[in-house]
């Protein structure tokens, strides 16, 4: 058996601290490579516990307008898969502890080549992969390659995922289970706390992995609510909207962009550390590093 990865270790630490984690999403290379790297470098110090790095794609079908625009900005600034790996590698050179998860769509991954992709990702210090349009039915080739390279493949569980399908979705899952809180694309609707609590409880019946909740969390207050029921809250669209909000008329990063983004991440981090209500029932379970 290989040693527990950074993702398992991080969730074990969170359990020891008795708190919910914060997973932050930004697109690699948005709005440009240097600014993107500066943001990623600052995320952990601002309180992010897991870093999701989006692989830019021309046709992000599962994403709402904020992340679509983020992907377009990165591509317009010349981002390629090499940019994504470079940002991960530079981050890893400075931070050996915070897990990095790449999140993207099948085509850029296949275009790079599965084996080359997982090898390069591992060398860049990446810990996990989320490929949004790769359901378990099509995921075997990637799952096998990733496991060989020691990378966790993280699967999404949706409100539409029935009980009969849950085991199938989670059987090859690693890292954490990603519970999609809304029926929709990223950054659009907002889920009720009760619905999120039910969704998390449903996922826990089928896996011992930590459960992160995402897709509809836009404010520190919402993140605090999620912290009461899940092991981690994922925030993406609201962060990349902060990037969009601090561009000049030519679409270039203003001086205040990085501090504004990291300041917002800091607010989210504070919020998840002070949940709106104490963890209850199954959600208060502890994770051990030996798991």
């Amino acid at each position, binding site marked *: 058996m290989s040693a527990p990865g950074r993702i398992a270790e991080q969730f074990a630490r969170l359990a020891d601290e008795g708190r919910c984690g914060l997973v932050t999403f930004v697109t690699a290379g948005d709005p440009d490579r240097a600014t993107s790297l500066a943001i990623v470098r600052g995320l952990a110090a601002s309180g992010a516990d897991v870093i999701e790095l989006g692989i830019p794609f021309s046709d*992000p079908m*599962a994403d709402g307008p904020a992340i679509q625009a983020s992907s377009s900005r990165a591509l317009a600034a010349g981002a390629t898969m090499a940019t994504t790996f470079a940002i991960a590698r530079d981050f890893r050179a400075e931070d050996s502890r915070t897990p990095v998860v790449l999140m993207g769509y099948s*085509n*850029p991954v296949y275009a*790079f080549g599965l084996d080359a992709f997982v090898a390069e990702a591992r060398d860049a210090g990446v810990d996990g992969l989320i490929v949004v349009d790769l359901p378990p039915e099509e995921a075997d080739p990637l799952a096998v390659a990733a496991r060989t390279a020691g990378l966790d493949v993280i699967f*999404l569980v949706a409100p539409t995922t029935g009980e009969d399908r849950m085991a199938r979705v989670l059987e090859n899952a690693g890292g954490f289970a990603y519970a999609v809180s809304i029926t*929709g694309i990223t950054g*659009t609707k907002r889920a009720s706390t009760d619905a999120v609590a039910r969704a998390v409880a449903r996922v826990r019946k089928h896996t011992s992995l930590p459960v992160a909740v995402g897709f509809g969390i836009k404010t520190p207050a919402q993140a605090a609510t999620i912290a009461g029921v899940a092991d981690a809250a994922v925030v993406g669209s609201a962060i990349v909207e902060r990037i969009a909000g601090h561009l000049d008329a030519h679409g270039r990063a203003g001086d205040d962009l990085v501090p504004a983004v990291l300041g917002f991440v800091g607010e989210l981090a504070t919020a998840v550390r002070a949940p709106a209500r104490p963890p209850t029932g199954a959600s208060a379970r502890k994770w051990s590093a030996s798991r």
Partner: protein
Amino acid sequence: MEQLNTYRAGPDEKGHFGEFGGRYVAETLMPLVLEVERAYAEASADPAFARENDHYLTHYAGRPSPLYPAERLTAHLGGPKIYFKRKDLNHTGAHKINNCIGQALLARRMGKRRIIAETGAGQHGVATATVCALFDIPCTIYMGAVDIERQAPNVTRMKMLGAEVRPVEVGSATLKDAMNEALRDWVANVDTTFYVIGSVAGPHPYPMMVRDFQACIGLEVRNQIWAAESRLPDVLVACVGGGSNAIGLFHPFLDEASVRMVGVEAAGRGIDTPEHAATLSRGRPGVLHGSRSYLLQDADGQILEAHSVSAGLDYPGVGPEHSWLKDAGRVEYVAVTDDEALEAFHLCTRLEGIIPALETAHALAQTRKLAATLSPGDLVVVSLSGRGDKDLENVSRLAAAEEDA
């Protein structure tokens, strides 16, 4: 290339045609896609569904459409005998209605209360809006802003039929972006909404289901050519964007080794320029809109914008079964340019009194080229996939620009 016993067995139970096809969608959609698959399997085993579908195809869409011997074109080209399969005479002026009737009946059977669709040239949007008017189902059509501009008459038709037309401004603002938006809508409205995909693209079961709904084209041609000539045709020619009219014509003939099949893509300004839509001629396999197929993409896996004078062929992907048929060597895929298609458009209009759609004009342009290589005894069936009324403004504008140049 190994000769297979049958080319008609696909897809397998996971929706794969060899390495192509499949279901590459987000988990939120996956249960829905499986639900459509189950519902379609039940419906296709139910004689009542087939009877209902046949009823509307016959009495509403006007099937079977004629197989017309194009006498003047045959004489003009001086080679093989050319037949037109007159899908332009179907209700709404193209083959698209066949698929829309089938999918709308399925949506109704599944209890879905709302229909969405994407459209490029507007033919599929019009057909969907038409069937939704008939069955009294609210419908929303996603259409790229660029396509709305160049296919204005169809936008008017959709609106008159009661559809909401939502312009898509992102990306290249054409068919692929309309399909992205339709998929996003579907993810957000899974309980109520059925997505009527217009071509043999998308996740399984769509490529199979749309093919089955279009296979009436080839089945009719079989009967009609036997009645007229007492033999099978030698060559079938059809244009390929997503590829639904081509697969509908080809599929019933795939196991007839004597029948040569030619799929015609849009070469735009030329396949050696960046501005074309020749996915099978110039693309590489990849994943877009739910299935693995040939795609126009850059080295980094970003989808490229396609170009064609014809909005219906302006798509950087192609149905997965066509990718498989290409690699299996069963169907030849070629590409003709905007200029060649426009010439064929005018030729057909003047010689036969039939104004073809610009998509169809690509198949006609290739027929011209083929005619020079075939003999007078040969029989060619060209898929007259749609009528050109929607393109008149666009063609006039191009002709005027030509004169100015």
